[in-house]
């Protein structure tokens, strides 16, 4: 009996270490939680265009077409890294609708950024107060979502997308 009591800490230690090790080795990243939004309906949003505040995009406007939503900002340097990839996507998949949300950015900075680096998006919506990002549960910029024709989120990625991710994870869904 006494032995078992004394052994308990060692057993607890083993359990903790095994789980922690599995967690670390499985390549899980706490910055990339499994999304709760996956396979759910896209949150409803309404946003005006960066270039013309009268032009508005709403949730129902992206119904019946596959849409790639990307949250970006001029102050976000990882966004700059993934930026050229969107041109490739647009060229390769002309039917895919590219929707960019400019997150918490002064309008002039955002316009200048898209002038300098080019604008790959079909529509750039303004999310100056971050409310749309809040609805989507954006954790940090950049973040990318793929929405299918039924308006369901079928893919979510946090951080800059890379060629590998595009090839292995996004393209199979397109």
């Amino acid at each position, binding site marked *: 009996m006494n032995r078992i009591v004394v052994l308990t800490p060692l057993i607890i230690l083993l359990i*903790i270490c095994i789980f922690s090790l599995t967690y670390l080795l499985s*390549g899980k990243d706490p910055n990339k939680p499994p999304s709760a939004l996956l396979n759910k309906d896209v949150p409803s949003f309404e946003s005006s265009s960066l270039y013309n505040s009268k032009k508005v995009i709403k949730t129902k406007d992206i119904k019946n077409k596959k849409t790639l939503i990307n949250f970006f900002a001029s102050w976000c340097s990882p966004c700059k890294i993934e930026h050229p990839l969107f041109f490739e996507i647009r060229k390769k998949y002309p039917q895919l609708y590219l929707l960019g949300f400019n997150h918490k950015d002064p309008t002039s900075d955002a316009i200048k950024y898209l002038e300098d680096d080019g604008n790959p998006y079909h529509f750039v919506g303004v999310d100056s107060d971050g409310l749309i990002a809040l609805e989507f549960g954006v954790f940090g910029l950049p973040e990318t979502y793929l929405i299918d024709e039924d308006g369901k989120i079928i893919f979510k990625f946090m951080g800059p997308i890379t060629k590998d991710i595009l090839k292995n994870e996004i393209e199979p869904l397109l």
Partner: protein
Amino acid sequence: MSSLVGFLSLVFAIGINFYLFLSRYIFKFQKQKFNLFTRFSSLLTLLSFFSLMYAYVVSDFSNYNVFQNSHSNKPLIYKISGTWGNHEGSMLLWLSILSIFSFFFSFTKNIDESFKRLTLIIQSLLHILFGLFIIFTSNPFLVNSILVNEGLGLNPILQDPGLAVHPPILYGGYVGYSIVFSIAIAGLFQNTDDEWLYVAKKWSLISWTFLTGGIALGSYWAYYELGWGGWWFWDPVENVSLMPWIAGLALVHSLMMVRGEQAIKKWIIFLSILCFSLSVFGTFLVRSGILTSVHSFAADASRGIFILLIFFIVTGFGFLVFLLKEPKKSKTLNLLFINKVSALVINNILMIIATLTILLGTIYPIIIEVLYNKRISVGGPYFNATVIPIMIPGFLLMSIAPILSWQTNKIQNSKKYVLGFIILSVLVLIQSYFLNFNTWGFVGLLLGFWIILASIIAIFSSYNVKFNIKFFQIINPHIAHIGVGIAIVGITCSSVFQNELDFNLNEGDEFNVNGKKVIFEKIETTNEINFQSLRGNFLFDIEKKQSKKIEAGKNYYPVSKMITSEAGILHQWNRDIYFILGDQKNNEWFVKVLINPFVSFIWLGVVIMIYSGFIAVTKR
């Protein structure tokens, strides 16, 4: 240059510790020399740490770590605190504090010399483990491969005076337990006499006091910087500091009570190992990036695995020695229905259950994610519903525990306590009846005031009141408990009776907060050295001549492109009025006002606990 000095002295210090470690088995040398070598290696480690600090102070961007985490525009204090405001530097701080503790321990006089040497050898082993960890996975002295003349800045949320000193003090607690750990292990190996228990008591008190200060600073920072109006969030990072704190509390109490009983001695050794294990576990959880928070600087799997390995070795070694080498049999426990020993046993059991409950809540998300690939978070509701009820009987007991007898079931002056408790209950009940009744509020207030009252009764009825140092040493346990009572009152009031008001305001608008007129004067933006600030200026209580000015707003840090919120707090002795400036929408500003009653009591209670910690160190 300074980086080279730092790196070499770090390596050299580890080398000396290898030598010291092997000295037990291979090289034999005199005790005097042994102590000198220990001190020398400590000084080298400190030299290494200060070289890094020097690189930060002079903004030496040829050091990659400085380049990544500093900026020449930063005020000097944040350059200094930048030394430990990153993963590599903070691990070096960890090692330096370990060295400082070894250094001072090597001067301890009143224990057996070979026992001391054994303790220091175990310290050397810890030094080697963490030193190798720094060199192989977290070297702060790497050379920057490109030539630059400006750095990348520091996480702006960390640019805060309270937070600048928070890590060293917290580490004083975490790492201080290493000495207690080493003493306990040495105690298992060298089952000589009980002298080491007194030495262990001193060191565990020092560590616990530092830990208390560190946790309090962290939560005070969260209170005014995070802008949520709370001071404790059951965030995993807070939990990992709370676990060694509670275990340390159990340890300190056991050490004060021990009178040679074999069972308590065994228990003390167990707690000593547990405290340090929990500290290392906390370091692992935070540093491996398994938990995301302001504390996780960079997620790197190899680092995580290395610290996990250290945690496994240290804890496994500790508990294995505990399993194999039992302390000698001596006196048995004198357990009665209600005497000092039984109170101690109950209090220890409660504290350990509380620690395990927190541990479960903290690692549960990791287990679930491994098993089901689902991310869950365990937060306030779980901890409030489990930990608090577990602690309540302990709080009830602590009010009278210091005056319980060793030998009998009798309580001195028991009538006074019963009478005091009844009067107090009636008063609190009346108070709750007139304010809106809340069960937790009632329980918390009754508990808090009961602890304070019972301690005061005990001081005045059990001792001759004299105002000299000795008297304060004698009543110190009661003083510590009064601190706890005051903190409980503060915690209860500020969480249960918090009041929240939301406004949408234009500049110049007047509004009411608790019957006091407040005016939202204007929005001001200014450029500071390293950030731009936006402040909403409020005048509180404008009908009075001395109305109070409150500034709430945000800071924008251009270098790291981050925004931090800066709450405006009006501190009054009985409440804090806490202003948060939200976003602007349609020319109106969203303003949240929180009225937190008796928050100051929490900090006052903590200060009293820290004071008692220091007083207890001076007492034998």
